[in-house]
């Protein structure tokens, strides 16, 4: 069962994402800041993480960058999810190694479609 890590400091959005993931049969873990997210990647070994950008302690960009720099963690897929909708920010996210960049508010169907696509593309472990 693919594992999805949800990182966002907005409880309502976390709740919504958890509902969506569970409904499609993924195993989830949710954390609300960047530091915890980094630790959770090590512990939980997710296949995919949904990463908010504006967060306390460590922002999404940094989390992404560090994960991609880490040999053991780098193969996790990352979807950046953010309220920052400008093109530069999107490019920055992609440059740092995100697989996808989704702007809030999002269509739940579209997000789930993308999640499935990304997980299907991944080699089986």
């Amino acid at each position, binding site marked *: 069962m693919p594992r999805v890590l949800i990182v966002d*400091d*907005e409880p*309502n*959005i976390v*709740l*919504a*994402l958890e*509902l*969506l993931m569970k*409904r499609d049969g993924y195993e989830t873990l949710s954390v609300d800041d960047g530091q915890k997210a980094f630790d959770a990647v090590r512990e939980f070994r997710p296949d995919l993480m949904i990463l908010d950008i*504006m*967060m*306390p*302690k*460590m922002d999404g960009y940094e989390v992404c960058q560090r994960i991609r720099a880490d040999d053991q963690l780098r193969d996790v897929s990352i979807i950046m999810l953010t*309220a*920052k*909708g*400008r093109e530069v920010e999107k490019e920055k996210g992609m440059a740092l190694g995100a697989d996808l960049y989704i*702007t*809030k*508010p*999002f*269509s*739940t*169907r579209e997000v789930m479609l993308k999640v499935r696509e990304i997980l299907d593309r991944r080699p089986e472990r």
Partner: protein
Amino acid sequence: MFQHWIILLVSFGYLGILFAIAYFGDKRADGGRSIISNPYIYTFSIAVYCTGWTFYGSVGRAASTGVGFLPIYLGPTLAATIWWMVLRKIIRLSKINHITSIADFISSRYGKSSTIGGLVTVISVVGIMPYISLQLKAISSSFNVLFYYNSGAAGDLNLGQDTSLYVALILALFSILFGTRHIDVTERHEGMVAAIAFESIVKLLAFSAVGIFVTFMVFDGPSELFTQATLLPETVKLMDMGSMPGGYASWFALTFISITAIMFLPRQFQILVVENVNEEHVRTASWLFPLYLLAINLFVLPIAIGGVMFFQAGSVDADMFVLTLPLESGRPALALFVFIGGLSAATGMVIVETIALSTMICNNLLMPVLLRFKLLRRDDMGRMLLGIRRISIVVILLLGYLYFRFIGESYALVTIGLISFAAAAQFAPAILLGIYWKRASRTGALAGLAGGFAVWAYTLFLPSFALSGWLPMSFVDPGPFGISLLGPYHLFNLSGFDPITHAVFWSMLTNVGLLISVSLFSRQEALERLQAAMFVDVYKERASGAEVGNLWHGKTQISDLKGLLAHLIGPERTEMAFRTYALQHSLELQDNTLANESLVTFAERELARTIGAASARVMISSIVEGEALSIEGVMKILDETSQAIEYSRRLEQKSRELETATRELKRTNERLKEFDRLKDEFVSTVSHELRTPLTSIRAFSEILQDDAAMDKEQRHQLLNIIVKETERLTRLVNEMLDFTKIESGAYHWAHEKFDLIGAVDEAMAATSQLSQNKNISVVREVPGGPVNVTGDRDRIVQVVINLLSNAIKYCNSDTGRVSLQLSPEDDQARLVVVDNGPGIVSEERERIFEKFHQLRDASMGKPQGTGLGLAICKMIIENHGGRIWVESEPGQGSRFIFTLPLAP
């Protein structure tokens, strides 16, 4: 007629008096109470212009040429009219540069050139030689008249020459005593000036006495004298231009050279410029000195006419009329007084002239040579300088004696003097053009001086040897090697002039022509241009406070500078000078530290006071390593013409204006950019804040839509979230609208009196839900009575709500404590909201009230709100005439405080 010893006793007695005056003057000067700081003393000292030539020679010249003696005094009268401009400028320049002599002045103007200084010195010494001999001749002749008049031995030539040798030696001794008494050799001699002024009074009195005697006692007043004179053919021609040799051309030439002589004879320069105590004295001297000249000349023609008529056939030397008339009339006491007057005139000239010349010989001729060949020993330089000057004085007087001995006998006094005048005139172009024309260059001045001097020597000086038999007469007529074209008295066959006019014409033509043309075709060196600019623009430079001549770029230790100065001006004066400098610049001068440019320049000037500018420069450069010219120096030279200065000033102003405009533009742009950035950030923030609730609303709505089978409880929970998020959106939109409305000034403020306690209660009620949710207690401390203020109640409530909800938001759940204190204080109501939250770092404290500013500290979590809340609070409070601020330390909680004026 007189016992020899009486004459000698009176003479030496008089010289003794002079010396006493000089001694007294020096003492007073040392004590700081100058006796010569007085425009009248200054004026009388200038009268050193009137020498034995005036005293004896004028009468002699008048007896043969009538009014022909007068241009020599009319010239200075005309010159005095422009002293206020020209002389004052020269004095100012000399004071600034510590000029010690005319050679020093010219050399300093032309790039401190020692070549020019040397040339000027040579011209002076050679040119003045006849003049000194003239004084020796005057004194010894007057001695002889007194000794031998009517005793039958008047014609004893050998004895006369011996007398003049003794006179020369005594005068040398006297000059040494006057001018080179001190070991610290400075350019000024206060005692000497005092003595000279005294002498000027004596000679005027003596000459007037004999004038009055002749006019009113020998004759019956001027009318009678002149009437009688019309009866004699020899005297009638003396009363108009008729007997003036050379006519009007000569008259003009004499006027011209005396205009220059009054300022540029070395002794006149010494007295007028070097010994000047105060520029302001020029004001008085400009009119009083011409009057002195007028007074001393008033009786010249009457005495001359009287003498001619009295002695008839010309058996007596007209130069000695002033003595022979009283003697012949049986007035030996008057004759003795007149003799003293003549002695005054001659000794005064000799003393000042030899002092001036010896200074020049030492500073501008010998020092550069000694320096070049490194013949100076540092340890006894002061003594050596003094020795050089003393020897120079003796040599100058002996040269004068030799000239007198070999040549003087064949000339009348005036003619000898005029040769010297023509020599002094050679300095005029270099000086006058030098202080008004920056392009006048060193090579130009050198060419002009050398050319003028050569022509002078050829047309006046050498012929005097021919006339005395030391050269063949054919040298003068027809000319050297029989070429009449080269005849010194009629060069290129120019005829119609007397020898003096002829020489003045050719030498000045050569001098000015070379100075101008060579200057126009030569390049000036940096230092030269700098000095030129400084000399021409002395008033401008000083007015702008610019330090001129800070050219030393090399390195030297202060102790080396001190050592150098100590050898030349004595350790005490050196120490004092450095201490004064340190005081004036508030500096501590350590001996082993490097001297800065300004200190080196200062030392150079101090040295220049003693040894002249050119030598001082060489001395300093011997211990200062490195280049002599700094970038600033070069830059200053670039500004040399006033047009360039004006142009660059305007350019500077324009560029300043441009700079200001650029800065203004930059600032505006920055503001705009900052505004843009803030707006951008605001849009970004607002967009974030709008997107977050929208995301939840959309997500849950879609979930609910897709999942019809969801249980009722969960469905309710999700719907509840959607409602909350919608409220959040509404609040946000309202806040933004509020803010824009207040900021644009469109908001209509209510103006009512209300009790703040009521407002506080309302705000607490509005936030009670919030505090209960986080389990935070909010404590309220308010006074018993009402706290009335005037304003918009709803808005004040809004502020209190904002502060309270902020406090609650930032506190931790359960442990958080918030208190609200309201108290009237003087004429103000003061409300404080205290929390025990994380606190705010100092740099944020001011900025949190700025619009769009949000706390971004990582530990504080993501921005809570729009960043408009506190900005709105600030606007509201300030609109009510109150103040809002925060007191906080990180980790210590925060105290948000506002004050409002109490209602009356």
